[in-house]
């Protein structure tokens, strides 16, 4: 059919772009979870300055368009003498933006952790860091699989914006193919369906993961 005829000669190139998209999203979700966990722990801290700083970070990065954030880093970092590639810049920007959302997710997960369970961990002599990393966080993450999944799906959609800073991930690759084939409709229609299938698949995987991880958890 006509769509396949347009895409077929460029399938290898598009797959490379797809691989780059996956790589960016995987790295960014790891970064976002690390940053989000750190921010969530800061937001549940007793020190109001620590809490305030963490809240401000979440607030700012959720209310400024990602494109603006991306340009800020892409054009701004070299000003500071930090020269990293566009891909790395994109991953960092996605991690920072994602972290703002992940911290919300983790924080509400933390709220669900039974205080009795934390008491048990305290009296057994575990220190604060261990209680957070071994008890509170793992429980919070388990109940957060679904909302965390939405963050991941949003990261996949957001990753297309990296094409604006010369990263040839899936959308960037498609742009090139559209320009060389003069068939933008076919290329972008296929691209849209591809993204939609990918995110739909992801949401199924997330539901399955949620069920598996919470198999034995109370109230999950």
């Amino acid at each position, binding site marked *: 059919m006509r769509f396949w005829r347009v895409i077929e000669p460029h399938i290898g190139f598009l797959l490379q772009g797809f691989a780059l998209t996956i790589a960016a999203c995987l790295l960014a979700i790891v970064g976002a979870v690390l940053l989000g966990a750190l921010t969530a722990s800061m937001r549940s801290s007793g020190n109001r300055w620590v809490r305030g700083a963490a809240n401000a970070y979440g607030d700012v990065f959720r209310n400024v368009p990602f494109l603006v954030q991306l340009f800020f880093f892409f054009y701004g970092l070299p000003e500071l003498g930090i020269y990293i590639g566009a891909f790395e810049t994109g991953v960092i920007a996605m991690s920072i933006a994602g972290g703002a959302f992940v911290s919300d997710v983790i924080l509400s997960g933390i709220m669900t952790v*039974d205080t*009795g*369970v934390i*008491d*048990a*961990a*305290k*009296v*057994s*002599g*575990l220190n604060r860091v*261990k209680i957070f990393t*071994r*008890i509170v966080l*793992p*429980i919070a993450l*388990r109940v957060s699989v679904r909302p965390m999944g939405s963050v991941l799906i949003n990261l996949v959609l957001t990753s297309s914006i990296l094409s604006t800073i010369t990263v040839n991930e899936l959308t960037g690759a498609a742009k090139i193919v559209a320009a060389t084939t003069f068939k933008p409709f076919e290329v972008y229609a296929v691209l849209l369906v591809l993204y939609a299938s990918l995110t739909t698949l992801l949401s199924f995987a997330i539901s399955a993961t949620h069920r598996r991880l919470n*198999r*034995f*958890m*109370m109230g999950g």
Partner: protein
Amino acid sequence: MIVAENVEKRFGDALVLKHVNLRVEPGEVVTILGASGSGKSTLIRCINGLEALSGGKITVDGHDVSTKAGLVAARRASATVFQLFNLYPHMTALRNITLAPIEVLKLPKAEAEARARALLEKVGLGAHADAYPQQLSGGQRQRVGICRALAMQPRYLLLDEVTSALDPEMTGDVLRILAELAADGTTMVFVTHEIEFARHISSRIVFLEQGELIVDLPTAQFFAEDGGLAVPRIRQFLSKMKKD
């Protein structure tokens, strides 16, 4: 030895513990009795440092629980079993038991697991090492809770109404284990509403009344007509318990 001197605890305006004095020597089983809301749980939570004192002092083997270093040492010396088990829901029974020995006592994993399996075997749960709390009955969960406490090889075991969330049959299982521990010479501070059981295993009984420790007697004397029963409030409490 656990020593509480003039312990005072407030929640806001409410004075929940008033000048409580208590000593628990190694080898003793001390039962805390008292009506609901009299402050039994609060006293236990002050001993294991889950609540900060408003006044007075608690030491465990000489370690002051109100200092940071003292609390760490005091928590090494004691272990707590909770009314609602408070097991870690995301870990198997075995992991629940080995977590603190590995992380706090720095025991090698293999040794911690061997110790945990032996404990589970002892409480009749040898086959359930890999079960998650959600897969266990209440009585089984509480037995895991006891194993978790024992795995720390504590000198003092603090137990707060550990059977009151269980049905009678499961209560029997748990009490049997506690009786064995008492017979082995484990030091216990025990909050319970199981009067007969308390009478059976305790060396001493103390009675809390609205935050005040009004009676502290050896078990036999506590139940004697000219001892505890001579106190009207205790007579009333015991007869009410019998009825329930």
